[in-house]
């Protein structure tokens, strides 16, 4: 079972968890990263820290992790520099990045670890619009991968260097985040046959964020349709449904929203929304 919702610390997260951690205090985020990685080592996972600076600085960044030196010596723990991973400013290629992490996960499992756990400083990868667009798609792809493979991650974002809008979008594509966020989340569904899970509340005040996030995350279609698992969607108004309709039609597809919120079917029945079909949760 994956964690989802608001998280207040980085301990006890499972093999599939995917956390957005936004921070304004570098010392504090260092502790969170250490906590998350130590937890992984204790669970027999291989851990990787991706951050700023040279090898020495990276090791220093994780020095708080108990037994880190031994783990670094055996390869149970590794550190990688962002600059080495993304030379030239860092516009992520989502597919390439996904392949790299899935290969690393397979190697970790082949080497006898119970999975791969990554703590990554991701702020430099989402500074521009183009970066954010690419990265949100990547976050969604990798989230789909994590839901089915022993790969867990903590993505750290420096909120003093990012706009509130960018942070909202980033938090909303992670199943877990340490900020209340925008009221909805869009991430991989644990139930088979769904393009993604859409949970929380959608109304006038966050429908534009939803449209931007959908446009950038681009969840995969299932049999030619975009099937959203809305079993934890507790509210959506006509503006949210119109947003989903516009998104579906812009992609030339039909969006199926499966939700227990009866208001969704009521509104869909009253408006002409050719791109959306609301179905009760099976």
């Amino acid at each position, binding site marked *: 079972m994956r964690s989802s919702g608001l998280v207040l610390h980085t301990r006890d997260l499972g093999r599939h968890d995917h956390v957005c951690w936004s921070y304004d205090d570098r010392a504090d985020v260092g502790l969170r990263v250490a906590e998350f990685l130590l937890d992984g080592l204790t669970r027999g996972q291989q851990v990787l820290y991706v951050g700023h600076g040279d090898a020495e600085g990276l090791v220093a960044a994780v020095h708080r992790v108990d037994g880190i030196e031994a783990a670094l010596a055996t390869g149970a723990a590794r550190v990688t520099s962002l600059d080495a991973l993304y030379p030239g400013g860092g516009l992520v290629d989502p597919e390439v990045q996904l392949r790299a992490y899935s290969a690393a996960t397979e190697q970790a499992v082949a080497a006898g670890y119970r999975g791969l756990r990554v703590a990554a400083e991701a702020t430099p990868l989402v500074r521009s619009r183009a970066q954010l667009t690419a990265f949100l798609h990547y976050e969604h792809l990798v989230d789909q991968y994590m839901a089915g493979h022993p790969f867990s991650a903590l993505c750290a974002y420096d909120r003093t260097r990012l706009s509130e809008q960018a942070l909202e979008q980033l938090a909303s594509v992670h199943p877990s985040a340490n900020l209340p966020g925008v*009221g909805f989340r869009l991430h991989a569904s644990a139930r088979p046959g769904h393009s993604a899970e859409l949970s929380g509340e959608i*109304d006038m005040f966050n429908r534009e964020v939803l449209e931007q996030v959908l446009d950038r995350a681009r969840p995969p279609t299932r049999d030619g349709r975009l099937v959203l698992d809305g079993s934890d969607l507790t509210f959506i108004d006509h503006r949210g449904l119109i947003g989903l309709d516009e998104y579906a039609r812009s992609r030339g597809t039909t969006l199926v929203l499966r939700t227990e919120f009866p208001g969704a079917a009521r509104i869909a029945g009253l408006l002409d929304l050719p791109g959306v079909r609301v179905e009760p949760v099976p």
Partner: protein
Amino acid sequence: MNATDTRPDPRFVHPALFYRSDAEYLAALVPFVTEGLAREQPVAVAVPGERLDLLRDALGDTARHVTMLDMAEEGRNPGRIIARVLRGFADARAGGHVRIVGEPIWASRSDAEYPACAQHEALINAAFTGRDVTILCPYDTSALDATAIADARQTHPVVWEADRRYASDQYAPDRVVARYNAPLPDAADRAFPVSRPADVSPARRFAADRARRAGLPEERLADLELIAGELVTNSLQHTSGPCRLGVWAEDGHLVCEVRDGGRLTDPLAGRRPPEAGRASGLGLLLVNDLADLVRVHTSADGTTVRVLLRLR
């Protein structure tokens, strides 16, 4: 709010039909329907259930060619009749003349409903100006009180009686809209204040919690959450100040009311059908769709929108 041009309209015809008996009802309506069909005009009849049965029996086989709607259901909330019943039928059959029988007022309409019914009748004139439609509105003079009949003379440019048809010299629909734009006494024992977007989600939860405790059936809670959300969102969007949401039970209804400092200047707000590609203005239409009754009072001092949902 002068919504209505009171000069005769060459295309839109809006008579009140005063009838005293079933026989008079049928003597006027059966020919109205059959003449329309003979001219290949689309015909709809939206009258309360037992009247519908009467007319269906009288029309016999011809009833198959008529769209028959139970006004007690479709038009339970008079605020949705223009958009959903009248324009719903007429707009889909544009291109030639359309005939509709619409009976929104009957004797058992409650005192709370009646003002909204009279305003609805008045606003039909502004909503259909220039449209190629006849909307014939039957009034049961044997059962309705004198006020309803006097109002009908103000809301209809033409009156039909059993033996004559004449222009109404009382015709003044905007006066009816204004007369029933009456203050709604503030009855909320505790109102929920909404002043910014972050208050809207808690306001919806407040409404749902109050409604659940007042006994609103579970299957209507989502309607209530949507209504409360639309009303407070409208206030935040269209006024400069805060609004207050009240939810309570009264006379077999759940009341959901929002008071703000703005003034509603468009008398047809919430009474226009949805248009493809236009998302604005849908909030009040959906409130009308979901509600059993909507009452509005608007003035320079502020606006109150009061929505009622049946508790049983």
